[in-house]
């Protein structure tokens, strides 16, 4: 299957995930799941979806893709609350507002949309820019900026820094500065925040060199290192390098890239998290992300012009192999081993591995869209229903997905049922009520 075909199928699948308020569906994640709430999530899925559609518009020249990017932007405009926050922006923690980095990622999508519309001569770009600015000012600058440490907090109440989230916000600040032709968002907020991030980057031991810890709380560093999230720091570091012509930012980005490549397995997958600063260290390998690898590949490709050019072909293959007949992408491998970390390659996958999530598949979508040949149209989608054996809560089960619903059943019982387009699942059995 070509990447253009994968993108066409993903587009068709994303259409099935739309409800009245935007792109919805259940979420599985490392920390928490959100299987009950299935309505629109105005979170980081909008970064990938808007970016992907803008890429398709640029590569194919077809206005239909811009229309879809604009429709996604309209979802965010409609879902913006009087506070400037977005409704249901917490991804795996939904249905709540104020999600980080999710609102910044949505802002980034809006700012890219506004910029593309303005460059193309459309005169209705301003509302998208204003919505993003409203959120950035009233939430991030007014509530999360910590003037004492010159960085953004992850919570208004707790001194904290989450580097990958801060870096997504920094990307939005760069986009804001570019759109409005002003230095302030970068000089006053983005660069100081990135300095705080880079100060955390590990130099030794070699096992962790280049890694950036997941977070700090009350100035204490949490020594957990998630390669996926470290990849999401790279684009902002590169933008800082371009802005300042200071090679230290590029060195930090390259070191992060080297860390990621060093931990890439022969199968192209990354461990979920590394821990500790000792020579041996510890590891929670599973679940290993698949659809989210789009973000990792994007980051590694952005490093290429700076002379960092690792062989990521196996990672590309791992992502490409994740395409489901429905058009969505499998989320991960090894959710069943999340607790004991004993993975069986011959056992059926956990249903959470197979469950395609809009806010993970968007990462595959944004990356794959860049691989569509310039000037070519996408082929017609070729999608089909999915029926796969899996395990749920350690027992054999079957996962089914059609354009209309997602269902998990075991032993004649329905454990989970979501009618696509609805804001809540119809059935969530106690076995799968795992927030």
């Amino acid at each position, binding site marked *: 299957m070509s990447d253009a075909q994968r993108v066409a199928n993903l587009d068709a699948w994303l259409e099935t995930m739309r409800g009245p308020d935007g792109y919805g569906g259940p979420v599985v994640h490392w920390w928490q799941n959100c299987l*009950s709430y299935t309505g629109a999530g105005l979170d980081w899925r909008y970064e990938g979806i808007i970016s992907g559609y803008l890429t398709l518009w640029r590569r194919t020249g077809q206005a239909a893709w811009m229309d879809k990017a604009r429709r996604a932007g309209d979802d965010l405009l409609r879902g913006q*609350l*009087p506070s400037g926050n977005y409704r249901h922006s917490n991804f795996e923690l939904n*249905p709540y507002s104020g999600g980080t980095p999710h609102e910044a990622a949505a802002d980034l999508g809006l700012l890219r949309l506004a910029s593309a519309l303005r460059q193309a001569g459309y005169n209705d770009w301003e509302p998208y820019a204003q919505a993003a600015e409203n959120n950035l000012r009233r939430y991030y600058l007014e509530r999360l900026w910590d003037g004492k440490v010159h960085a953004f907090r992850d919570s208004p109440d707790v001194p904290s820094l989450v580097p990958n989230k801060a870096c997504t916000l920094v990307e939005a600040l760069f986009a804001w500065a570019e759109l409005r032709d002003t230095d302030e968002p970068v000089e006053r907020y983005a660069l100081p925040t990135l300095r705080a991030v880079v100060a955390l980057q590990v130099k030794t031991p070699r096992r962790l060199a280049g890694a950036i810890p997941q977070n700090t709380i009350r100035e204490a560093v949490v020594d957990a290192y998630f390669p996926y999230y470290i990849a999401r720091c790279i684009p902002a570091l590169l933008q800082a390098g371009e802005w300042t012509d200071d090679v230290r930012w590029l060195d930090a980005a390259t070191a992060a890239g080297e860390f990621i490549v060093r931990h890439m397995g022969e199968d192209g997958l990354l461990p979920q998290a590394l821990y500790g600063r000792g020579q041996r260290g510890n590891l929670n390998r599973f679940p290993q992300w698949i659809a989210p690898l789009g973000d990792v590949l994007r980051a590694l490709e952005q490093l290429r012009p700076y002379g960092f050019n690792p062989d990521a072909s196996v990672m590309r293959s791992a992502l490409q192999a994740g395409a489901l007949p429905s058009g969505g992408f499998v989320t991960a491998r090894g959710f069943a081993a999340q607790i004991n970390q004993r993975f069986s390659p011959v056992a059926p996958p956990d249903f959470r591995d197979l469950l395609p999530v809009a806010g993970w598949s968007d990462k595959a979508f944004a990356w794959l869209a860049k691989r569509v040949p310039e000037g070519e149209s996408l082929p017609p989608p070729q999608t089909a229903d999915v029926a796969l054996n899996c395990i749920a809560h350690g027992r054999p089960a079957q996962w089914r997905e059609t354009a209309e619903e997602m269902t998990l059943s075991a032993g004649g019982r329905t454990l989970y049922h979501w009618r696509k387009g609805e804001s809540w699942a119809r059935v*969530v059995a106690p076995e799968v*009520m*795992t927030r």
Partner: protein
Amino acid sequence: MIDAGIDIIRKPGLAYQEAFDWLAVRLHAMDGPVACSVAADWQLAEMARRLPRVPTLHSEAAGRDLFHALGLQEPEISSGLLGAIALVEPAKLPPASLERLKPGGRLFVVAGGRLARFLAERRGRAATSPMSERALVGVARGIGFRVIERLGIHPPAAVLHHYAGEAALALGRRDWRDRCHCAMRRDFVAVGPLVSWSALVCLTLEYAR
């Protein structure tokens, strides 16, 4: 912040998140009109953000400001019988509300279990104390309800995993702590004999009269 004193980005603890999700799934799956009754502003916010079209029968909460802050229209209460009513930590079973339930209708209740006193949301609460599960079921049975579903949220197993995780962290094993957290989540909902020992109990009752 909003006028009703509720910060819209604030979340209750995991147990309440799960309990309100359970209510939302149950009410969403019902055919016909449904309603809810809550005891506090934050509970109204939890219901409103989940099911904005479900009206509130009885609440001491300041609804209008809260709905505005959430970008929602406050739903109107319709006349006529209801297919289901959700009650969150009721101090008593409100007879006027229950009379609106049609025969065969459902009552979805979130009540405190034996570990409820450890919930942060329960600490410092004003004088009104919610009915215990046991008292609530006794009263409900007396007026014609029968229990058809019973779940415990945040049962002892989840508590044990939490403390095992803290112990692992004290030993310098954050990796084990994360695994314990996942185990805590896995065992966050109980059925069977340990339901009463959970922090919250979710009950489905059918109006049998």
